[in-house]
């Protein structure tokens, strides 16, 4: 009897949960009402069967519970009943399958007027490519990827020259225009998913896959990776901004083409040296960093990272928060740099500065830190040497007080939360593994033991404690 009551409670509870729970499909922002409809049909058909079978079971359990004077009814089979049940079930299955297949028919057929966007997946961020004026994407493959050609576009292919490159995890799409997302991966399998669009597909290396949709709502939508792609899978995020066509066109025109990127003059260290005169006051003559000015060491950082941070300070993606007073101090200096070429020059000069050892100011348990650092090592390297392909700067030899402050900022969302801080978001997620300030000091203490020499074999947590 108790079991019969339990089943009733569970069945009623389950239906009530469906009706009243706060968790449902996110509000739809694309043309795929049909997918939502198939989900609803599935809920109603299966819900009916669920309740009906459970009720039947409950009645059976109550009516035919054991009585000493009762004998059960001997009935090996009942062909008619079995045929009926098979028939009714088949009808139910067809009712589910038919709409499913019908909608799938439109899922696989991309409308002819769809424009194409290539989504490129890479551990652990997204980037995007538009076909440019000729409307065709140039050939590309992972083997051609290098620092100057992050998308691996074939330089011999004329169709690729005008391709517009968005080397950031933020992309804009025009509202109410069907779009075909062509998916390509540089390394492992990813899956580009934006929940309110409903569609998604794996991004597989060595081949291209696709899906299409029409964004119907303007606004900003979060893209996540939905296929396990390694240690930072959970932090692989992106943003899709759906805007009016005019805004989109304007934005797209600002993005560089492949030919422009290739033709861009590299940073000139000599010109950069003149720019650097301003920095010396706080960061020191050799960019070695000065604690009394709260200015971190610059020497040793790669130019990609320096350029990105200078741009962040310029735009306010970093250093805007009240909670980051030292970041605020940096902003006017970044704004004073005249143009993108000035930033490139400055970054190129800083790369030439010699790397001197820094003084230790933080006390922590380096052994415990070594364990925590395993996660950091996936992007920043086992020796803290930094890995530009992961957008991860060098950590080894950086001022430990600066690292602690930045980790705190990331953890509290003071840094990295700004929508224009493209890769800082990832650090906000990753910094969550440092649950308290002790953990933060420990990992910094461990980083202080690293020499940043990437040729050294994998870090050994046991032997590196001082």
């Amino acid at each position: 009897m108790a079991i019969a009551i339990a089943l009733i409670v569970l069945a009623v509870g389950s239906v009530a949960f469906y009706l009243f729970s706060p968790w449902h499909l996110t509000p739809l922002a694309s043309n795929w009402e049909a997918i939502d409809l198939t989900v609803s049909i599935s809920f109603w058909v299966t819900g009916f069967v669920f309740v009906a079978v459970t009720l039947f079971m409950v009645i059976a359990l109550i009516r035919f519970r054991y009585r000493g004077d009762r004998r059960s009814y001997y009935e090996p089979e009942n062909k008619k009943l079995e045929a009926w049940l098979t028939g009714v079930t088949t009808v139910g299955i067809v009712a589910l399958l038919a709409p499913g297949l019908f909608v799938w028919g439109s899922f696989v057929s991309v409308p002819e007027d769809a424009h194409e966007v290539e989504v490129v997946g890479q551990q652990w961020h997204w980037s995007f490519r538009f076909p440019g004026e000729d409307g065709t994407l140039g050939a590309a493959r992972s083997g051609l990827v290098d620092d100057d050609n992050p998308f691996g576009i074939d330089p011999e292919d004329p169709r690729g020259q005008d391709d517009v490159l968005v080397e950031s995890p933020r992309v804009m799409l025009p509202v109410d225009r069907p779009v075909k997302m062509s998916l390509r991966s540089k390394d492992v399998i990813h899956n580009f998913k934006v929940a309110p669009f409903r569609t998604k597909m794996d991004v597989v290396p060595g081949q291209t896959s696709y899906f299409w949709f029409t964004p119907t709502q303007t606004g900003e939508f979060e893209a996540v990776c939905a296929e396990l792609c390694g240690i930072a899978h959970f932090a692989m995020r992106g943003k899709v901004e759906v805007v009016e066509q005019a805004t989109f066109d304007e934005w797209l025109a600002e993005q560089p083409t492949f030919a422009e990127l290739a033709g861009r003059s590299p940073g000139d260290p000599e010109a950069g040296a003149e720019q650097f005169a301003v920095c010396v006051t706080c960061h020191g003559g050799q960019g070695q960093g000065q604690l009394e000015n709260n200015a971190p060491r610059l020497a040793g950082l790669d130019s990609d990272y320096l350029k990105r941070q200078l741009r962040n300070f310029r735009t306010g993606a970093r250093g805007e928060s009240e909670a980051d007073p030292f970041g605020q101090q940096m902003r006017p200096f970044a704004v004073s740099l005249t143009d993108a070429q000035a930033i490139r020059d400055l970054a190129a000069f800083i790369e030439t500065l010699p790397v001197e050892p820094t003084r230790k100011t933080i006390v922590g348990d380096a052994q415990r830190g070594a364990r925590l650092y395993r996660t950091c090592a996936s992007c920043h390297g086992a020796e803290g040497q930094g890995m530009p392909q992961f957008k991860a700067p060098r950590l080894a030899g950086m001022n430990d007080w600066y690292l602690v402050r930045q980790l705190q900022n990331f953890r509290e969302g003071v840094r990295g939360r700004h929508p224009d801080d493209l890769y800082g978001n990832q650090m906000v997620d990753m910094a969550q593994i440092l649950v308290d300030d002790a953990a933060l000091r420990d990992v910094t203490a461990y980083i202080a033991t690293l020499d940043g020499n990437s040729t050294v074999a994998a870090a050994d947590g046991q032997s590196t404690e001082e």
Partner: protein
Amino acid sequence: MGEREYDASYQAPPAETGEMELVHAETFIGKYIWSQDAKVIAIQYMLTATAIGLVALALSIVMRLQLGFPDTFSLIDPAEYLQSVSMHGMIMVVYLLTAFFLGGFGNYLIPLMCGTRDMVFPYLNMLSFWFYLVSVLILAAGFFVPGGSTGAGWTLYPPQSISEGTPGVDGGIITMLVSLMVFIAGFTMGGLNYVVTVLQARTRGMTLMRLPLTIWGIFMATVMALLAFPALFVACLMLLFDRLLGTSFFMPEMLGVTQDVAREGGSPVLFQHLFWFFGHPEVYIVALPAFGIVSDLIATHARKNIFGYRMMVWALILIGVLSFVVWAHHMFVSGMNPYFGFLFATTTLIIAVPTAIKVYNWVLTLWRGNIRFTLPMLFAIGFLFTFLNGGLSGLFLGNVTVDVPLSDTYFVVGHFHMVMAVAPILVIFGAIYHWYPKITGRMLNVPLGQIHFWVTFLGTYLIYYPMHFIGLEGVPRRYYAYGETTFISDSVQSLNAFITIAAIVVALAQLLFLFNIVWSYYRGREAGDNPWHATTLEWQTAETPPPHGNFGKELPVVYRWPYDYCVPGVKADFIPQNVPPQAVERDS
């Protein structure tokens, strides 16, 4: 409808095969360690599977603590989270469920229920267990190799499973692949035994259509496993070559931090086809024995013949065959040619028909029965409800369009835990409560069993049912933490905390069950030979627990199907399979 006619003059056909000659071991080691007795091998399988299953259970609690209370516990980092996910999944599916059903119940029940003295190849059978044990040890060694066990997910998808950036790429993935290959080799030895024994060594009168459904389920599952595991074997071997020898079966040209060899031309999707060609039948390899066993539990404890026996057998066979042509429904969003979706959604939903028939027949068996709410019956009912729920959510995921928003979310996690984790585990528990008296000669403690049932049944439902809904909202699976994801509502975190607490309670209840197993072995009530008044042959042995060789001097002869409960005109409410028509005492 109506009574089955029995010809009173019916004589069982003469034996086709001669008596089996068994080597009776004399020493303790021969009897219990290097044993060739299928019943001892069964216990060895069950204990080993339980031991490694407890490790997987502990891993799930570690994961749940991270998900439920991400800011409170710093037990694990992202790498360890993924390692826990992967090991939990692989252990539970292969090393616990498959091994327990086929190696455990298969070994114990096939010879007894078919009325034979032992498996046809006892030595091979022994070897099968030792291969299994070695595979478990290699698997467990993965925890201790440098870099730890693999964190590639139980699906082991390349390229990431053998690329930098995934935990365990140094050693863990190698131990995992080698362990699986050893497991498959061991299983093949056992599996051939089960198939040949069922086909060739049944006792006189035990026609195929008189086999208990338990045996039908185990038999079909074994046939499927023998056909499906080779696909996994070659996938493992090729992946191992890719990892160790630098081949490119599954590796396309790609970036990698420390790629020491050039990769070119391999297909990651090919691995998924091989994996799921094994992986989907694997679901039924676990489910079919559960289907079979639960049929017998329901019939016995409702004192009623199973409804539609022939239909049940054909449904098992049909499910077994169909399950080989549905594998790509795991790959609707894998980047395979999307036109496959039409075919695989159709085959997948067709398989729902025979499955639904089984569910109908179980509940129709209850109808007009005389239901005893014994522990095995409670677990059987728990299975019915859980499986109903999990089966229905499968109709979402199998229906290609509906799958798109739900795949890779907690909806999937909820679904497969309901249908192929909780449901089969409830059957394993029910079966243990049912057959423990035969295995040990003592009954399990009922009040402890009741607590175990209620906490497990209700607790697992509370864990997995809500997961479907956060999946509906889009919460992705295999995430170490969710941070601030815009489409995930804040209340998801409270739900995760709730689920974690429920999971801990359910895990603790399993300790109670283990205590019951040990305590009842010494203190349990004496069971007698046939405490449930069941019809099948294992309950008709002369001794309990049955000795090596199972039956006494003479093998039993079978005269009837296994479901003669409450036959009209017959005095007793059950007639064992080996009672000849002449010996049945009728109402005057």
